[in-house]
Each structure stands twice: as C-alpha cells, then as structure tokens.
C-alpha cells in the first residue's frame, strides 16, 4: 500500500513540473507621481528679436509652464533642473539615457524653438528613459505672442501620450471676479488661462453678474446679469464684447447653459414665482418649455450627446437631482441620500454627473453615475458649490466661501480644483476673489 501512495505522490509532483510557467498577479502598484524631466527648450541661434517677447528666455519659460502643468495634475513629478545632466540642444538630439536615469527620471521632454520672420516654430520630443527610445515628436508653427498656448498644447500632447487621456491645459476658465465688502460685492465677468495667466475682465462691475458659461466653441458666454435691475440671461461675444439679452421673457431668467451643439440656451424662467426650465434656439428664437411643474426646476445641464438633461428640482419637497429626456419627458429622480443635492453637471465624457450636496450643515462636492448610483463625495467644506468639468472629464473646478465675522470680515471666495479620484485638491490662482467658475473645452480643437 505504501508503494501505491508513493507512486501517487511522485506522479502528482511530476504533473506539476510539466506546467512550469509561474504566473504572478500584480494588482497593486504605487500612486507616486511619475518622475519626469522637462529640459528647457533650446533656442535656435538663428532666432531674431520679437517685440514684447524675451526670445532668449522663451525656452526656459515654455518648459516652466509645462512643468507647472504637470505638477498641478498630481500625476507627474517634474525633477529639479539643477540635476540635469545634458544641455538642451544636445539632449534634444541624442539624450544619454543612462545619465538621465541616474537622476531617477522615467520620462524626458526635450525641444527646440526658432523665432524668425514673425513666426515661432517649436519642436518637442518625449522620451521613455527606461525603454531608451522616443515616444512622441511634434512640431508647431504660430505667432510668437501665442507662446503660452504652445506650452499648454505640448503639455496636452505629453499628458495624452503618458496617460491615454486627453489633456486639459490649453483651456480657459470663465468666472465671476469679486471684490468689496460681503454685503456690497462688486462682481465682474473674468476670463483667464487655466493656469491663472492672461486675466481679462469682460464686464465693468456696474451691475451684478452671475454664473457665466462658455459655448462649445469658447467664443460666446451666457450668464445672468442684473442690468437695469432686471435679472435676465445674456449672451456675450468674447472677441467683440457685444452683449445681448436672450429672448424676450416677461420675468427673471437665470441658470443658463448652452446645448452641446451650441445652438440653444437652456435656462430657468420664473413666472409668478414658479421656476421652470425652457430652451431658446439662438437662430430661430423659438422658445420651448421643458418642465411644467409647481416646484422649482433649475440648474439644467445637457448630456454630451444632447439626448438628456439633468436638473435640480424640489418637487419631492427638498432639492434633489433629476434626469429627463431633452424634450422634457421621462423625468426620473436619481438622488435619494440624506441631505439636499444641487448644481448637477453632466461630464463631457457622459459617464458621470457632478453635484453639490449639503448635509448637516456641511457642503460636499461629489460625482455619481448618471443613474444616481456610485455616489462618491470628494471634498467637504463650510461652503463650496457649483462644480464644472475639465474637458477630459477628470478634474472639477468649483468655488468656496469662508465663514464671515459679525461685520462680514474674514469673508473670501476662491476657486479650487480636484481630481475625480478625490486626490489633488488645490487652489487656483486668481487676481481677485472668485466664484462661479466654468471650464472651457480645449481651445485647439
């Protein structure tokens, strides 16, 4: 009997050794940002002068913008320049990979630029240092005044190559620039690059302006203005500065947004105290009523395919989030948690809805799937609301207000952003206090 058992054992063991390939499952890694070296761009000696631009420093300035963009994502760790081993011009031609790897970099960005005959030509390369080969190479030609946008476009290309996602650096943010005491705020429409540069004001601050939003081509803005003490939705052309009221409504219109094709404006109209959702076609001027309910219906937001609308309604007694078809049919409530929900915004990827939640006196910014499931609260604060999506659907920008003392002292409003993973919460730089931010789509599209 023992012999039988022995044979069995040997048979079994030999069976194992036949299949010798070991498989190991790797299901975890680290969340450390990718160490990347951004070499200053080499300025071609043939470059001439250009008015208003320090051509010699352009190489450094462009790489500085790229570095800052990467650092702000929380996904990349740009390494300090002091450690760089090769000069920009040589690195761009033939980087010595082993040397760059010594400073623990895993990716390298190199490039060169030429300013000549009123044109700026930029070329960059992205290298994979562990594989020792080039990953991407691209060249751009534009006017020298656009050098910041070139830096942002390069950042987008690299970001996309390394994460698979579209970037969001070549974008602008429109917001309400605030100043003055809390009970007498002066508000103007402000617009800036997403990194805080190139701030411009689009209105003068003589009347209250609120909730501005871009159209899909980023050339128009729709917002609420109290011009002549009549709160109405307006349209503003960013280039010309021309403003016009939207439609001819006998009462307050507010909470405006564009449809994904840019042809309509969707908003709330308050009639005899009751707010319902309407759309107006900008070309035909045809007004269509979308909701017809005795409750407050507001904050409408289209899905990116234009087929659905998510909005805020208190028809159940308290503010909750609903989804309906774009013709107003099929209204479905999607939030059921404790607390109130507001400001629903549909992600440009179509997969999530961002919102504000208030529960037990605390304000939350969160995301959920479009059927209301998978609710995730990303951040909590004394007061924060109104998230807006980056064009790649990965980052939210929103605003916060601080507690004020008995005379309103200590009050401030600031813009913040956070990843949808809940990581990387950071404050945006604005020249003044700011609120009601809205993110543009990629400018280069």
């Amino acid at each position, binding site marked *: 009997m023992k012999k039988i058992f022995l044979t069995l054992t040997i048979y079994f063991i030999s069976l194992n050794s036949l299949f010798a390939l*070991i498989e*190991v*499952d790797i299901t*975890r890694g680290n969340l450390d940002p990718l160490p990347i070296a951004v070499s200053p761009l080499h300025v071609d000696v043939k470059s001439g002068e250009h008015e208003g631009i320090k051509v010699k420093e352009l190489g450094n300035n462009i790489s500085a913008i790229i570095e800052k963009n990467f650092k702000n994502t929380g996904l990349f760790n740009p390494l300090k320049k002091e450690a760089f081993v090769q000069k920009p011009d040589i690195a761009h031609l033939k980087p010595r990979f082993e040397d760059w790897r010594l400073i623990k970099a895993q990716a390298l960005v190199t490039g060169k630029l030429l300013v000549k005959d009123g044109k700026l030509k930029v070329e960059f390369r992205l290298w994979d240092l562990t594989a020792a080969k080039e990953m991407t190479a691209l060249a751009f030609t534009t006017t020298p005044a656009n050098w910041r946008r070139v830096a942002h476009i390069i950042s987008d290309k690299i970001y996309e190559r390394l*994460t698979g996602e579209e970037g969001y650096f070549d974008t602008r943010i429109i917001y309400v620039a605030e100043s003055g005491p809390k009970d007498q705020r002066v508000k103007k429409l402000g617009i800036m690059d997403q990194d805080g540069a190139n701030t411009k004001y689009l209105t003068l601050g003589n009347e209250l302006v609120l909730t501005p939003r871009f159209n899909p081509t980023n050339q128009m803005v729709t917002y609420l203005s109290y011009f002549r003490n009549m709160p109405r939705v307006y349209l503003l052309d960013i280039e010309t500065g021309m403003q016009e009221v939207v439609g001819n409504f006998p009462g307050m219109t507010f909470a405006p947004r564009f449809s994904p094709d840019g042809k309509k404006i969707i908003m709330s109209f308050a009639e005899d105290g009751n707010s319902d959702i309407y759309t107006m076609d900008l070309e035909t001027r045809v007004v269509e009523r979308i909701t017809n309910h005795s409750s407050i219906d507001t904050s409408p937001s289209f899905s990116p395919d234009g087929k659905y609308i998510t909005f805020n309604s208190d028809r*159940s*007694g308290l503010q909750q989030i609903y989804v309906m078809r774009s013709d107003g049919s099929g*209204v479905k409530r999607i939030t059921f948690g404790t607390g109130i929900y507001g400001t629903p915004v549909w992600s440009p990827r179509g997969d999530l809805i961002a919102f504000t939640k208030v529960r037990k006196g605390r304000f939350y910014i969160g995301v959920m799937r479009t059927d209301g499931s998978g609710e995730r609260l990303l951040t909590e604060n004394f007061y924060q609301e109104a998230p807006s999506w980056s064009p790649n659907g990965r980052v939210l920008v929103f605003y916060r207000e601080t507690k004020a003392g008995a005379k309103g002292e200590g009050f401030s409003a600031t813009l913040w952003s956070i990843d949808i993973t809940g990581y990387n919460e950071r404050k945006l730089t604005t020249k003044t206090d700011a609120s009601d931010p809205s993110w543009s789509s990629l400018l280069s599209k």
Partner: protein
Amino acid sequence: MTKSLIYSLIFHSVMILLTVLTLPFMIRQPIDLPPIVSVELIQISDKTNIPFAPKARKIIEETKKKEERVVSEQAPPAAKAKEKPDRIPLPDEKKEKKQIVKKKQNPEEIEPQIRQSSEFEKKEIVDTNQIAALIDKAKEEEAIKKNKIDKLTQSNVKNSFATGLTLSEEDALRAQIFGCWSVPLGLPYDEDLLVRIKLKLKKDGTIMKSEILDHQRMNRPGQKFYKVLAESALRAVRLCQPLKVPPTGYEKWKDIQLNFNPEEMLKG
C-alpha cells in the same frame, strides 16, 4: 483474479481523479493578496530576505484611506402626498440590496490581516502529511472556483503547490513589482485592462527577454488606455531590474508571467 482487478480499477480511477483535480491548479484565478501578506511571511519563512515592510505599510495605509473615501448613502425617500400620479416608480429596493452587499464585503477585506498568522501555524502540520493536504486542497479548489470573493487563507496554500515558488518567494516578487509600478491613474476602471507580460530571466535577476501578450491590441484604435497600461507595466519591470530572485531553483523561475491588473487600484 477479481481482487487484483478491483485493486487495478481503484488504482486507475484514483489516478484519473487526481489528474483531473490537479489540472485546474494550472489555470489559476487572478488572486488578490494585500501587501501585508509579505510582511508576515518574511518573519516566518527563512528562505528569502526582503526588507519591504515600510513600503507595504505605505500601501496598506493608502488602501485604508481609499476605503474610507467611499461614501454611499442610499435611503428610500419618505412618501410625499404632493407626488403626481404620472411619476415613474423608482427602484428603491435595488438600491437597498446593493448597500447591504457592499457592507458585507468591507469587513472581509480587513479581516485577512488577522487570519494570516494562524494559517501559517497550520502550514507546518500540513507539510508532514502531504497526502492529506492533496485531498484537502482538492475540496478547497472547487469552493474557490464557485466563490468570486477571494478568501485569502485557502488561496495561499494553493499557490505554494501550483507555482513551485514558496509563498515567500512569490510574494517577495510581487512586493518588488508593487514598488516599481506607477499605476497610470487616468485609466477608466470599467474596461477590461489586463496586461500580461512574459519574462525570461537570467540567473542574476536581470531580464533577458520581455514580451507583451496581446501585443497587437496596443496599436488598435481606441485601445490607447491598454497601450498606456502596457507601457507602464514594461517600465515597472525594467525599473525593477535586477529582480531579487531566489539563489537556487533557476529552472523554476526562469520563465515568469506577470499579470498586471489595475482594476482594484482604480476602483478606489
């Protein structure tokens, strides 16, 4: 005559049974073992010497933090008299069930830490009676197949026999790659993203050859996430060279396949 016939039949059927039951060992399910496993194992087994405790701790803390982030409160609304009759009825029950299931899973993820040490005391006893182990494992294997939720204890014991590496060696390898792999956070977590890399190693742990299975998928349109994930996996593997490998048994581990699956990290 009949006696030996019966013996022969029994012997043959047992052989066949064992073969059939052994084969499933080869096709393993992807198992998830939290990093803490390697910490416990290092203390008990004296074969390899991997100082990875600090990194494992960091990963554990980050996992715990991620678990705290998930907040879902789904309570059905109180009925309101104001409701209009044409409103679409809402699936309240479905949401409640989801919540209950979720609650059950959470405690299980944390418990394995405690169970680990007791499982290892058991292992010593198992070694002295291999036949009993074979039969026990056969039963366990079927249970695992039916049960999608990973039970740490059973799968550990199963690994040791199937891979030919001891548990400490395999988990040491896993811990090393954990440290080197920067997971691209931008990946969508509801897509099938599994990158399998076959490695041929030299005796000193450096890589002789690496090959991505499903290589063609990388260049297909719409698969750029797969490409990004594959590249990150390759980077991890190259960065980790030379891999810390056992001093003996080269034949066992010279061919390794690493299955990179970021699903768990992205869900957090």
